[in-house]
């Protein structure tokens, strides 16, 4: 073991002192590999990364001194250096002895620079691993030689494969603890081969290593003469990186920013996702489909005669065609498609579960649209890869679902193009990134179902009734007085010869929505359906009054977006919880408090009050009759 530590690891050290110019020449032209290490604390993952940093001289003396001191104080390796301490970053983590987030580490050899995504291995950190894997060219799957292929090995392999990592390294670690026994190694490889092919991993590279002792890390180990394959570093230095493969694909570049310093210059800036572009190439701008020719590839270092996948460039065209952020510039005779309905694989990353039907922001490339996800077709058990029935997806769940966007997006299946197939979902209220997803394919339905234009228009319907259609959307706690006031408003409007319709929460649940319960997901679907019905009724020219608790801001906002501008009037029947509970007209609060009724708004399910409603009614300050008058006066001044 000691001879491994004492050996000079990289010959380049000598070159630095002897010929710095030559050294720089070599190092300024090396390539870069990003990889992820998968395994848990027990597999020696942190030790392996610490070892890679140490062996490639990324640890300075002052850090080493601190490491030696820490190793004795809090290390788990007795008097030996605990390499794991090098990579356990945040104070909270050091106290708990776990790694809770994605950390990025850097080291370099003379051939390559490496960025390592170091992520925790437990199931509750699936989202962290997926995040780390999303930018990786390669995954190192660590196995403890004493334990063999475990549930977590299968989970990590599945996730790496799901995210599209083609280079898998099976690092059978802690070989020193099994006496470098070839039989142990071979048995593990055999086991893993069977599993890997079952989930579609076609090739992988297995190697026997010891992160702690340094075997087969930087060079062949004398302890494993039976192993003829490459050492870990050697392999990492030579595998093909993604960007090389991306360059072979047809040209696509999402437009990030239009560069227009003056009237004489108009350039389109972006990062080339795939392919190669040259001046003179015929290109097509999507989704518009307009074509032009590339005249220049502009950079501050002078125009280029070609640019490839992975480069950030600015392109100029021969023609003044429309092109802006969110568009995709592509090879003219081989462009990607646009669609608005897809099947997608989704990894849920938020503590708040996915709500089918709720509108989220979807960001893909440089396009941001509104998307709704349907109830999942299934969820994947990440340990067994079984498909399970699911109504929603919660934190760390992975599932398959259809989703639709409010306008067409330019896309390619994730398998073919990470940039045009990988997306994130963003909650519209909290602005949190709640999910990552991969588009599998577009649904034909999107191309074949068209909106039927009718000859009798909504304007005609409204004119016939001599009124302006509107939706009076009542929201408030149970027992706040919504139904009572809504009923009075409708009576008053009817007396004024207005054509109205009252959609009441309880009544709708007896028919249209009788299949829905009171979970958050069902509440969202309840409101979505009511919104769609209200929209049809406004198309028919009616004044629609709705009385639903509608507790979530997102769904009220969704319905607002469905309507014509100005037609949605949010009426907050504002009654304090204590007041509503003391009235308890239907005896529901009592049941909720005693636990007989679950998911009751205000008790064990949240109510998100409107921030800026068109009308706010304080029921502690006016009677129902006064409230109804105020609302009618606001609608018909």
């Amino acid at each position, binding site marked *: 073991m000691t001879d491994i530590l004492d050996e000079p690891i990289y010959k380049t050290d000598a070159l*630095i*002192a002897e010929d*710095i110019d030559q*050294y*720089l020449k070599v190092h*300024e*032209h*090396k*390539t*870069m590999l990003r990889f992820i290490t998968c395994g848990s604390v027990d597999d020696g993952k942190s030790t392996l990364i610490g070892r890679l940093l140490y062996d490639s001289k990324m640890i*300075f*003396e*002052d*850090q080493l001194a601190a490491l030696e001191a820490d190793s004795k104080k809090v290390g788990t390796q007795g008097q030996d250096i605990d390499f794991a301490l090098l990579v356990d*970053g*945040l*104070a*909270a983590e050091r106290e708990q002895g776990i790694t809770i*987030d*994605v*950390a*990025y580490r*850097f080291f*370099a050899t003379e051939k*390559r*620079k490496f960025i390592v995504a170091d992520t925790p291995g437990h199931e509750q950190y699936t989202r962290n691993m997926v*995040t780390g894997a*999303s*930018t990786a060219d390669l995954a190192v799957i660590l196995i403890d030689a004493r334990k063999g292929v475990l549930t977590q090995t299968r989970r990590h392999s599945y996730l790496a494969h799901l995210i599209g990592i083609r280079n898998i390294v099976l690092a059978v670690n802690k070989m020193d603890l099994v006496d470098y026994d070839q039989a142990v190694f071979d048995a593990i490889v055999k086991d893993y081969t069977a599993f890997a092919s079952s989930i579609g991993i076609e090739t992988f590279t297995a190697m026997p290593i010891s992160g702690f002792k340094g075997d087969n890390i930087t060079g062949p180990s004398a302890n494993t003469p039976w192993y003829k394959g490459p050492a870990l570093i050697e392999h990492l230095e030579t595998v093909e*990186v993604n*960007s*090389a493969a991306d360059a*072979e694909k047809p040209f696509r570049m999402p437009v*990030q*920013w239009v*560069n227009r*310093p003056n009237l004489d210059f108009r350039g389109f*800036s972006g*990062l080339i996702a795939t392919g*190669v572009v040259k001046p003179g190439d015929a290109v097509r701008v999507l989704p518009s489909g307009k074509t032009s020719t590339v005249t220049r590839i*502009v*950079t*501050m*270092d002078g125009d280029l005669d*070609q640019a*490839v*996948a*992975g*480069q*950030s460039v600015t392109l100029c065209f021969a023609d003044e065609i429309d092109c802006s952020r969110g568009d995709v510039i592509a090879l003219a005779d081989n462009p990607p498609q646009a669609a608005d309905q897809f099947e997608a694989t989704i990894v849920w*990353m938020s503590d708040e579960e996915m709500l089918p039907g709720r509108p989220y922001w979807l*960001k893909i490339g*440089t396009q941001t649209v509104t998307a709704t996800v349907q109830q999942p077709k299934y969820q994947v058990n990440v340990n067994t890869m079984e498909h399970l029935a699911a109504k929603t997806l919660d934190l760390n769940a992975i599932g398959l679902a259809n989703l639709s966007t409010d306008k067409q997006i330019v896309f390619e299946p994730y398998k073919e193009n*990470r940039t045009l197939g*990988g*997306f*994130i979902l963003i909650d519209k209220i909290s*602005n949190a*990134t709640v999910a*990552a997803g991969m588009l599998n394919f577009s649904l034909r339905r999107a191309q074949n179902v068209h909106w039927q234009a009718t000859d009798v228009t909504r304007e005609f319907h409204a004119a016939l009734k001599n009124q302006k259609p509107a939706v009076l959307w009542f929201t408030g706690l149970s027992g706040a007085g919504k139904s009572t006031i809504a009923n009075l408003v409708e009576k008053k409007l009817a007396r004024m010869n207005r054509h109205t319709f009252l959609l009441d929460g309880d009544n709708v649940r007896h028919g249209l929505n009788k299949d829905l319960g009171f979970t958050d997901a069902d509440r969202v679907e309840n409101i979505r359906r009511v919104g769609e019905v209200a929209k049809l009724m406004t198309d028919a020219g009616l004044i629609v009054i709705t009385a639903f608790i509608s507790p979530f801001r997102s769904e009220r906002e969704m319905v607002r977006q469905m309507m014509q501008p100005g037609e949605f009037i949010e009426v907050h029947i504002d009654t304090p919880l204590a007041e509503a509970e003391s009235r308890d007209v239907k005896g529901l609060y009592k049941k909720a408090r005693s636990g007989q009724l679950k998911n009751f708004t205000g008790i064990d399910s949240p109510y998100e009050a409107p921030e800026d409603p068109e009308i706010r009614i304080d029921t502690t300050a006016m009677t129902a009759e006064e409230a109804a008058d105020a609302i009618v006066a606001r609608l018909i001044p």
Partner: protein
Amino acid sequence: MSDQLSKSTLTHLERLEAESIHILREVVAEAEKPVMLYSVGKDSAVMLHLARKAFYPSPPPFPLLHVDTTWKFQEMYKLRDRMARESGMELLVYHNPEAKERGINPFDHGALHTDMWKTEGLKQALDLYGFDAAFGGARRDEEKSRAKERIFSFRTASHGWDPKNQRPELWNLYNARKNKGESIRVFPISNWTELDIWQYIHLNDVPIVPLYFAEERPTVERDGMLLMVDDDRFPLKPGEQPVMRSIRFRTLGCYPLTGAVESKAKTLPEVIQETLLTTTSERQGRAIDKDAGGAGMEKKKQEGYF
């Protein structure tokens, strides 16, 4: 780097450059009022160079902000003004008025100096101008807590950082949507190492402060640190005489807080050579990281330090 373009495999510096430019453009496309924090050090120099490349032939569409302590090296002020001119960008210099009024300085006030001029000054400047996104030149290899910080790092209205509540960053998709009062610190050179920075400066002739190169300079030795007597505000102790030594700096900050190293490295390759052969890490010359043990920077960041 144009000789590399005929190949389809980009070099590590080309990939890092492309990633940084992509980040800079995303922020400009999605933020309302971005700004670049410019500290005049080598990392800032590279970040500014990348910004000029990202938006060429336009000048970068945001101002430079220097949160000044009045105690930087004179050479730094010179380069700062020159780079602002050459890049065609507006330069905003901010001095915390309270620190100015109370005469806060590194000799008499220790940690309070950094806290008031830099941490407080930065918060005040961002609030004053209403910037919603600020580019910073921090790198993940600098320090443990930075290794886990996102490229888009959200701060509360009081500029605090919550390491446990960070948004996942997948592929190269950045979620720049903010809640009311929040602002974003964006680190376009997160994935660069110190060596990458030096190599890039070398390949691209990025202008840097001459203090990075060795020269005879007036110095005094205090607490094992070599300090440069940059102007006559430096209070010499009785009997203390500045001594001319051939020194250079590995990192630049306020001159009374920044330790020099004795060196003969007068050219960039020589500096890189020395950096690679050295056995102590980069930030060791700075007093700031030594506070509060290993968690020093993490704690400072939670309080709003960049």
